């Protein structure tokens, strides 16, 4: 089937079997291998990308269902020369060991900070009325869909808090 995906502002016209997941379309058909395949069952979050601004597990979605959608992967967030604030913060705080989960962590955190900004509550929020704040407990809860086999969690949370604080300062 013919599918058009706009990945990081570039249109990709792909011919795909309906079984191809969004993850495999991104990696194997569009050639963008920054997004990682971990469990391939929606449990680890390594495949997290943003679709129309929202984070999802790309392994649990069919590419054909995303015809016309705008997808952002780790490659679309920043470059080695111009890192995104979260990418820079992960380096600053040493928010990884092996790095395999990192693209998913950063894509997830990028969208998660927008969810906080939009005032979405979480399971650990004291009230449902907000305001939502990027505290350690809130970040841990909101990032629970991203596992890190190396267990670099303390520094992942530190990176996200740093990026969130920098954005507050800039705002």
């Amino acid at each position, binding site marked *: 089937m013919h599918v058009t995906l706009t990945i990081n502002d570039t249109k990709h016209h792909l011919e795909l079997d*309906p079984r191809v997941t969004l993850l495999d379309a991104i990696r194997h058909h569009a050639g963008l291998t920054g997004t990682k395949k971990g469990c391939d069952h929606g449990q680890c979050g390594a495949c997290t990308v943003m679709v129309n601004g929202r*984070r999802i597990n790309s392994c*649990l979605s*069919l590419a054909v*269902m995303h015809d016309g959608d705008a997808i952002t992967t780790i490659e679309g967030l920043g470059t080695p020369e111009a890192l995104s604030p979260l990418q820079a913060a992960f380096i600053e705080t040493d928010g990884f060991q092996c790095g395999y989960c990192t693209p998913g962590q950063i894509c997830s955190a990028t969208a998660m900070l927008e*969810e906080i900004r939009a005032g979405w509550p979480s*399971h650990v929020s004291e009230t449902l009325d907000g305001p939502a704040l990027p505290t350690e407990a809130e970040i841990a*809860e909101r990032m*629970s869909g991203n596992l890190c086999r190396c267990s670099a969690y303390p520094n992942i949370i530190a990176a996200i808090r740093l990026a969130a604080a920098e954005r507050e300062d800039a705002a």
Partner: protein
Amino acid sequence: MRAFDYIRAGSCKDALAEAETPGTAFIAGGTNLLDLMKHEVMTPARLVDISRLDLRGITLTDAGLRIGAMVSNSDLAADPLVRRHWPLLSRALLAGASGQLRNKATTGGNLLQRTRCYYFYDTAMQCNKREPGSGCAAIGGFNRIHAILGASDACIATHPSDMAVALRALSAEVELLAAGGGRRQVPLAAFYRLPGDTPHVETVLEPGEMIAAVLLPPAEGGRQIYRKVRDRASYAFALVSVAACLRMETGRIAAAALAFGGLAHMPWRSAELEGALIGEAPSPALFDHAADLLLAEAKGQGDNDFKIPLARRTLAAVLAEATAEEGARA
């Protein structure tokens, strides 16, 4: 994954017409269905994509709240009306899955998600739900997560949804569409089926029928609480959960609706338990009596025996919180 034909529905009418072909499944968020298709637990020959249908509205009506079947779990949890008047529903949704999954999972799909019984997922094992008549490997197997109420000799699986437990306590109804223009409304209480000797038939949905909306009656005053007990603090299914809507008047319980997750093949509710609370002043003895009524027929399977005392304690904790005087809440 087995090969399938993919059809994107342009309208509910198209989707329902397509679903008349045997072997067709609807796909919306796909977060559970695609996982099951990868494991070949489910092998539909045709997928009809209903994710773009115009069923995304959340509307306040005289009859209550109408939630379109395609509303994502994230949008529903964050909806201002839901947060304000049905906080139980927000809390239950936020207690389930992960941020990524909630962004994709839909209201209709959440109701229809399948059990996470390990033997259902493992195609090498016996499972009457996956393969009717093959047996149940969970009975006598590893059954820590399994049912203590309403189970049968054919199946001891639990329903995994948190959202459905809240909806059951909120007396929700489900609006169903059928090909040819049929439309019916079913209380959630009557939507799910106990396993009996047909555990593969989980709801009263007829082949080809589609969930269009979930309907909530107007919110009653009082406290709404969702308490979930699980093996880790986040991103895990409930071992036991309690959804409570409770209203006090002059020191006595005036209204109580309680639904339980993790205990049965469907969200569980006991009219006897609720009846015993009405008109009474809260006390540990009353909560214990309520638990007796809930658990009179409870049967452990070995690994899940702990759920019986856990359900008792969780119910007592929720009732204590729900009936505590203002200012005295933990």
